[in-house]
């Protein structure tokens, strides 16, 4: 994110804080003298609520100012906070505290204006700080009165942003989506006209349609862009958390951001927050070593944690990388054997071993810290990402560090999907979940433990017949051939058996009405160009709620 954008955000925010602070002060002033308020029984309680809201506003502004490097302003606000706290604690009469507070608000406004004019020269407020210090020491409002400031300062800094509730943007986006579908219908009408001989009219309609198409896609893109937020707004929330968390374990961590101006749909940013929190916590708890340990390994005592965001075609990649102790696959393998997840004679690939870490309740450290506990975090992160049609994977080297990579579709609303037909119904399988698809002979599906499985390159993968699972009419298995779509990853791979594959397509996700309840294995619906509705498969749901809970033998044909 470039600095000028950061500055603008800061000023916009500051404007709001000062405004909130001002209104709180004014209502305090009213509360003391306004006769109409005599009915208020407990004015003290109301006052303390107002003071708390003023404190909240100041606190935000103080934090932001500190972050922007305006130290003097930060200190000044800190002193204002002290004054407010004294009134809250009853050490100072509210009315006595008001004059310096009101003046303080004007001083902040002036300082913000100066910052807007020349951001590179931080305002100096030493004199005002000293005034407040002496006020706090003497409890008197003898602070010298200054002349009234530039009247324009009351207007505050000018902003060029508008706050819009996200719901409104969401509504606009779905309206634009409906336009796209209407456009497709009109296209069908146009070709029908052309075929029935109305060539001229069809041509006119086609021309109009083409221009409508441009407008519609511009509209859609514009709304999508308005929903985008730089990922840095999320990254920065972790700075303090990482520092404090590391500190509590006697570790030092430097958090570095890369590509933090990559923009993402706000819904994705919101959904990313918790999984990222788990990954960062995991990196600090398990990855980064103590300074002493690091010195022994010849690493700098301060650990480095890098958050990177990049975009590649339709996917966004978020990397959480540490330079800590890394993961020893052998250690995980031993643990998995001990837990009975692996057998001693199994020889899984390194990648598959690392995937075990995402299983519920799997952890590499024997004494888990009080914070991230038995590896619960990784499991949660993986599950959340799967819900967004994304994936998490781990790359690691012993003693060099680990990197968790989150891969997400760029938009939650439109995803590429593989269309597959089972028992006469077409289902959309999000491409992000698909590993591969294979044509198979019916006779190559075997029974093992009363469950159908297929051997794919020496791996045994359980088979789930979509038609059977969804209780559809019995599928048709043309000539004993069927297609297996391998979805999920690592231990959670399953092969969905379908009758036919019908190619790949971008689909617009529409949620199903809640009256359908929690339809196992279905995450939504989409309308195809020909008006038909297809259901979108919920791959993690298929695995968890469907496959695991299914009695053995069910779903067999």
């Amino acid at each position: 994110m470039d600095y000028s954008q950061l500055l603008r955000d800061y000023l916009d925010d500051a404007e709001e804080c000062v405004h909130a602070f001002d209104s709180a002060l004014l209502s305090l002033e009213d509360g003391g003298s306004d006769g109409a308020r005599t009915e208020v029984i407990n004015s003290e309680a109301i006052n303390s609520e107002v003071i708390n809201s003023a404190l909240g506003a100041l606190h935000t502004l103080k934090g932001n100012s500190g972050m922007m490097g305006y130290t003097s302003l930060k200190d000044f606000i800190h002193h204002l906070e002290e004054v407010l706290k004294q009134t809250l604690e009853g050490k100072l009469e509210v009315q006595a505290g008001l004059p310096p507070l009101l003046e303080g608000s004007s001083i902040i406004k002036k300082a913000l204006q100066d910052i807007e004019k020349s951001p590179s020269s931080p305002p100096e407020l030493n004199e005002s700080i000293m005034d407040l210090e002496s006020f706090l020491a003497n409890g008197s409002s003898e602070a010298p009165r200054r002349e009234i400031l530039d009247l324009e300062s009351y207007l505050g800094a000018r902003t060029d942003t508008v706050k819009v509730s996200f719901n409104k943007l969401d509504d606009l986006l779905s309206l634009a989506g409906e336009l796209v579908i209407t456009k497709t219908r009109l296209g069908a009408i146009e070709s029908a006209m052309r075929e029935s001989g109305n060539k001229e009219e069809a041509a006119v309609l086609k021309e109009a349609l083409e221009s409508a198409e441009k407008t519609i896609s511009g509209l859609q893109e514009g709304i999508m862009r308005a929903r985008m937020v730089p990922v840095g707004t999320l990254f920065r929330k972790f700075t303090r958390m990482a520092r404090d968390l590391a500190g509590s374990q006697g570790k030092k961590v430097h958090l570095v951001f890369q590509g933090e101006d990559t923009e993402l749909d706000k819904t994705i940013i919101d959904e990313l927050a918790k999984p990222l929190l788990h990954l960062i916590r995991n990196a600090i708890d398990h990855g980064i070593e103590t300074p002493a340990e690091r010195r022994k390994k010849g690493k700098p005592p301060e650990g480095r944690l890098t958050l990177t965001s990049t975009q590649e075609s339709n996917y966004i990649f978020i990397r959480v990388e540490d330079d800590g102790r890394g993961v020893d696959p052998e250690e995980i393998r031993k643990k998995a054997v001990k837990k009975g997840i692996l057998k001693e004679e199994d020889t899984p690939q390194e990648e598959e071993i690392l995937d075990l870490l995402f299983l519920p309740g799997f952890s590499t450290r024997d004494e888990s810290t009080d914070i991230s506990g038995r590896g619960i975090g990784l499991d949660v992160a993986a599950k959340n990402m799967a819900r967004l049609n994304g994936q998490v994977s781990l790359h690691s080297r012993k003693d060099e560090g680990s990197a968790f990579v989150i891969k997400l579709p760029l938009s939650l609303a439109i995803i590429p999907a593989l269309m597959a037909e089972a028992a006469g119904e077409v289902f959309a399988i999000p491409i992000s979940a698909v590993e591969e698809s294979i044509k198979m002979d019916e006779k190559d599906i075997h029974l093992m433990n009363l469950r159908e499985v297929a051997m794919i390159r020496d791996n045994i993968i359980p088979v789930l017949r979509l038609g059977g699972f969804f209780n559809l009419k019995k599928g048709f298995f043309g000539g004993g051939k069927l297609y297996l779509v391998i979805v999920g990853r690592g231990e959670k791979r399953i092969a969905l058996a379908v009758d036919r594959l019908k190619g790949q397509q971008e689909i617009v996700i529409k949620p199903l009405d809640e009256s359908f309840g929690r339809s196992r294995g279905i995450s939504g619906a989409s309308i195809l160009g020909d008006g038909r509705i297809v259901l979108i498969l919920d791959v993690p749901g298929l695995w968890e709620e469907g496959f695991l809970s299914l009695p053995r033998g069910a779903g067999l044909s």
Partner: protein
Amino acid sequence: MGIKLGSSGLAEDLGMAGRDELQIVSFNLGEEYGVPIGQVQEIIRIGNITVVPNAPAYMEGVINLRGRVLPVLNLRRKLSLPANGTTKKSRILVIEIKGKLLGTLVDAVSHVLKVPSNSIEEPPEDILDKETDYITGVCKLPKELVILLDLEKLLARENGHEGGPDLQPDAGVDREN
């Protein structure tokens, strides 16, 4: 596409306060039922219904209503009436409830009626209990009886009674035996 009706949600029609007649859409489910016309947005023929697997049995599926994924309720199943497949006469009433659109599958749409309010009686007490509070009245017409439904109340039931014995998939079928 069918008959397009006024889309203004005349909530007061439900109460009929100060009115001497009520306009209803009546439809057949073996018996005659009716809902206030203000709730009905339009009546459409059944096209392709996409079945949603693992959904409650009274949910018939989804249809594409001009680019919108419209859920369709099977009213017979919801009312635990004997099942009856769809025919040429089957229709979907598109209803607006609490700002949401819902399709309800019925055997046939009979009439749009203006009924004098003095022909509407409270439902007989012996058929009325807490479980059937969605029946708001019975309309006595010269040739037939029309049972007036409050669809909002009927739908609200699904939350409170989900999985209750009366909503099991085959409850309606059992009655036939």
